[in-house]
């Protein structure tokens, strides 16, 4: 699903020299990281555009950018670490779920099931992810540098309204397209009897994954909407109990 984190800026520490040095290293690393990720997704965007302009088709596009995509999407795992050690003020679980769902799509769907790599739905979510990530990482970068242009803030808190549903559509259509191939090959599945006394059917697992979008997508979407009201419109939201 498209990302929807809260503001990933560094906590304000008080005037304690020791704490300030730790903050400086964290700020330096995060700035470097976010610049690198912005650059990476920009490279992906340009590679995709160049392929389409040269070949006038989307067939083979995924294959051409697969390595870069896998690299930059997998590296995003460190963001879970950022939350865990506290240099980014977002919940570990939220970030974890986000990153894992992306890793799942990239490694367990498009990478493993070659037959669906030329589906239009793949291009759909690739475009959505690219636009979303470029906006998100540049937002974090400018935030850390304390020079946030309003249009980046505007983009981050408005684009998701269209990007998010489109991304979900792309992902769901891709998983749906993959189902017959999963069933035929029986990939990643384990049957009884075996000495671990467990079974796993990847086909039904994917169906459950698709169904789980139904409760999860609205929650994440409305969370982003609330963030938008707070950040862009300065509304004071009265939080629910505890």
């Amino acid at each position, binding site marked *: 699903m498209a990302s929807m984190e809260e503001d990933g800026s560094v906590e304000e520490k008080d005037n304690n020299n020791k704490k300030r040095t730790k903050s400086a290293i964290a700020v330096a690393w995060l700035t470097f990281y976010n610049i690198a990720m912005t650059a990476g997704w920009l490279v992906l965007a340009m590679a995709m555009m160049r392929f389409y302009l040269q070949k006038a088709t989307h067939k083979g596009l995924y294959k051409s950018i697969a390595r870069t995509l896998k690299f930059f999407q997998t590296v995003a795992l460190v963001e879970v670490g950022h939350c865990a050690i506290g240099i980014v003020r977002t919940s570990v679980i939220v970030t974890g779920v986000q990153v894992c769902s992306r890793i799942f799509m990239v490694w367990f769907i498009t990478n493993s099931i070659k037959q669906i790599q030329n589906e239009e739905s793949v291009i759909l979510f690739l475009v959505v992810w690219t636009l979303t990530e470029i906006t998100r990482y540049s937002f974090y970068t400018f935030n850390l540098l304390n020079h946030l242009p309003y249009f980046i803030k505007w983009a981050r808190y408005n684009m998701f309204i269209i990007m998010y549903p489109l991304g979900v559509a792309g992902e769901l259509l891709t998983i749906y397209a993959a189902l017959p191939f999963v069933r035929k090959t029986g990939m990643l599945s384990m049957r*009884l*009897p*075996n*000495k*671990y*006394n*467990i*079974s796993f059917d990847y086909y039904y697992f994917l169906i459950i994954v698709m169904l789980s979008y139904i409760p999860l997508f609205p929650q994440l979407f409305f969370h982003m909407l609330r963030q938008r009201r707070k950040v862009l419109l300065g509304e004071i939201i*009265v939080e629910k*109990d505890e």
Partner: protein
Amino acid sequence: FKHGICTVEILDAKTKDKLCFLDKVEPNATIGEIKSMFHKSHPQWYAARQSIRLDPKGKSLKDEDVLQHLPVGTTATFYFRDLGAQISWVTVFLTEYGGPLLLYLMFYFRVPFIYAPKYDFTTSKHWVVHLACMCHSFHYLKRLLETLFVHRFSHGTMPLRNIFKNCTYYWGFAAWMAYYINHPLYTPPIRYYINHPLYTPPPIYGEQQVRIALIIFLFCQVGNFSIHIALRNLRPPGSKTRKIPYPTKNPFTWIFLLVSCPNYTYELGSWFGFTLMTQCLPVAFFTAVGFIQMTVWAKGKHRSYLKEFRDYPPLRSPILPFVL
């Protein structure tokens, strides 16, 4: 020390609306009594779901707190927060534990619509499957009886939504485990031998593994029960005093020397034994998840013991001796 009569007003903690005005309140009235009076004027908010506090964002006052010992004048202002629908701990526990007990038995007796129809109401040919059913059922029966006769709960109730969360966890895992252990294609523990030319495989299964597992399981069940009894005896009926638990004459409680929450230690041991007995990965997952949750609880309990008692024994770890 205040004489005479007090008045109490209760405001909504969020909106600051005046919800209730009680005059003629005795200075020695408890918060619990005030809650009953509030309930009379607002019948939808029974005492268990009321959180009464001195400050809108402060901590809840206890039922035993007495009005005249609180920092209020002759007119006391309290803030009210609705804790939501409540359900008693006893009800939650009985439902949580009754589910796994019954569900497992349904899988054990191979009730229709679980496995292929030709297996309906058949029994497994592996003796370890019968043993596992007895152990699992014993475990949850023990828990049900402890809930009714042994445990003393400090809080009467918990939020209603907890019962759905807890039951999903217990019932879900019980069904998942039971499905595989009682499956017609279940594979019991088997011993592996070196490929010796004169090797003759014995016509039995991993008896040794199952035997060891059973001993571990039973040992930990007795241990867990001993701890529950020891904790119950720590607190006489009706009192809410808190004391440090110490080893008693029962050797199973000597683990208190090394661990703050040995009930969790023994519980982990029981499920470890059950995992070994059944050699079933879902059981291993259940044990792992339970271990993580119990460690979180044990660390919390350990921390509150350390905070409350200056003379808390330093040798103790929260759940695993010397380790965790």
